[in-house]
């Protein structure tokens, strides 16, 4: 196997703005805060940045800010800029930055995702919360969902969770283990939205949103911005905080690009993006020290665990039940920042930030000897993942 081009890239800086349920600040204000912190964290200045990459770019869901707004705000001089939603999930922005660096289009790319959903910046008439609520009206990929009141990703993902329960015997207690684990970890995260202790009984008692998904299966809207600096590996020795290597990216979408017509109702496109990531590396699931896996809805994390091979198909329920395997001191420390369920819906980038902190050894709940981390983000037909290492890959 020729060395995958993404290994030319490292993550040299990572930072977040203030994060809260509601900050009542503009998306670009939060973005500038995160960007300047990340650039400083990387030991660079604004003048060193020659690329910007973001998800989802202009007009995207959950508010935020565009690459052009940040470009203008800090008056970067760029060799490359990209921002688009039709990519390998939220992490697609990071994937493209790594490849732009490998191609020599840029040397230091500022990558960000900003959300102002908590303040309601992205809410629109007729829109639901999450996914396609604000997208494309009735003529887009949701044209046979919205007319039936299935306007939220909660509805669509509930259908997959139900089918997974039907085929494999997955239980609500097992789904709840994802939420309880996230809440336990969030207690150590000063920026987390929800930190009050939660038990599995609390989970089972809360109201249903879209059966079998209850309120605690759904992540919490918030305001905040996450930024990372992706640099050429040649900069690695000069990074003040230590380089995080990009070992492999996962981008495949082999099934139909649809929430309702995908070929298998017990998994989603992470089946494909995860498989394509493992095809690009000598590392295996057994090498992974921590997993930061999307939990916009708790069932998505189960799907990611199976897709990445941390357990067999259908076995994610028993794998997470009781929480011992996935605890911060368990076999596979999972979502150690509190996930989106308790840490806030930073739309994939909270997981990326945490993976960088774990590999540097500076996380709030550090995983001992953390050398390899996997990040998986997204659900439905929009997913992507990446394998990161302490030091160069």
């Amino acid at each position, binding site marked *: 196997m020729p060395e995958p081009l993404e290994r030319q890239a490292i993550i040299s800086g990572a930072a977040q703005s203030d994060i809260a349920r509601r900050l009542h600040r503009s998306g670009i204000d939060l973005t500038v805060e995160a960007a300047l912190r990340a650039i400083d964290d990387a030991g660079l200045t604004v003048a060193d940045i020659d690329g910007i990459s973001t998800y989802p770019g202009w007009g995207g869901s959950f508010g935020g800010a565009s690459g052009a707004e940040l470009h203008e705000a800090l008056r970067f001089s760029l060799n490359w800029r990209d921002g688009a939603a039709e990519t390998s999930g939220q992490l697609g922005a990071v994937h493209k930055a790594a490849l732009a660096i490998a191609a020599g289009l840029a040397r230091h790319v500022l990558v960000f995702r900003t959300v102002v959903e908590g303040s309601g910046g992205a809410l629109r008439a007729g829109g639901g919360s999450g996914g396609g609520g604000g997208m494309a009206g009735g003529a887009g990929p949701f*044209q*046979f969902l919205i007319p039936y*009141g*299935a*306007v939220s990703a909660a509805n669509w993902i509930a*259908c*997959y969770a139900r089918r997974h329960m039907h085929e494999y015997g997955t239980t609500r207690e097992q789904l709840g283990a994802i939420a309880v684990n996230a809440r336990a970890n969030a207690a150590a995260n000063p920026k987390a939205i929800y930190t009050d202790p939660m038990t599995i009984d609390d989970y089972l008692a809360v109201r249903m949103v*879209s*059966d079998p998904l209850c309120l605690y299966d759904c992540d919490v809207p918030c305001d905040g911005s996450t930024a990372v600096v992706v640099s050429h590996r040649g900069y690695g020795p000069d990074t003040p905080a230590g380089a995080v290597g990009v070992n492999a990216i996962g981008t495949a979408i082999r099934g139909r690009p649809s929430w309702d017509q995908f070929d298998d109702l017990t998994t989603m496109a992470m089946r494909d993006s995860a498989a394509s990531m493992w095809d690009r590396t000598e590392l295996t699931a057994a090498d992974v020290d921590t997993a930061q896996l999307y939990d916009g809805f708790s069932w998505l994390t189960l799907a990611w665990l199976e897709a990445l091979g941390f357990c067999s198909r259908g076995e994610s329920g028993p794998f997470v039940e009781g929480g011992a395997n996935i605890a911060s001191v368990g076999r596979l420390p999972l979502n150690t920042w509190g996930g989106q369920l308790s840490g806030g819906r930073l739309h994939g980038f909270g997981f990326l930030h945490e993976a960088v902190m774990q590999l540097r050894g500076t996380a709030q709940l550090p995983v001992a000897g953390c050398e390899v981390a996997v990040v998986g983000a997204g659900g439905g037909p929009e997913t992507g993942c990446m394998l990161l290492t302490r030091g160069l890959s």
Partner: protein
Amino acid sequence: MNEITAAGNEPASEPAPVPPRFIVATAHSDFYWRSGVDDILRIQRCGKCGRWIHPPGPVCPYCHSRRLGPEPVVGTGTVATFTVNRKEWIPGFMPPYVFALVALDEDPAIRLGANIIGCEPEEVEIGMRVEVLFEKNGEWYVPLFQPEGRA
């Protein structure tokens, strides 16, 4: 005092209110939302290879023929999965309601999104046999499903 009418001969009451559905028909999907005018469900079918296609589009994804058209189906299928929605996302679209993906008998790989009516939400289960019926909603005939044989 209103005129008393014989049982079974009441003046026509107002039709039951229907939920706001935000249907946007496209050049390809328009037939789907009008098909129920004669109580028949139609699905796009390839005129060359005969495969059923959903959502309807501009080309057969199997043989790439562009000779496509709506054709009647029996209108029966099986609940592949479903959710009981408990939250009012859209003003006037009142929970609880069942959103299901119905695997069509003619090709179970085709799943029609729909509400299941005519039974309690708690009665719906994966594998349940269902049949189409139509809701008149403005200019549209919205395909819905109910348990088979309940009509």
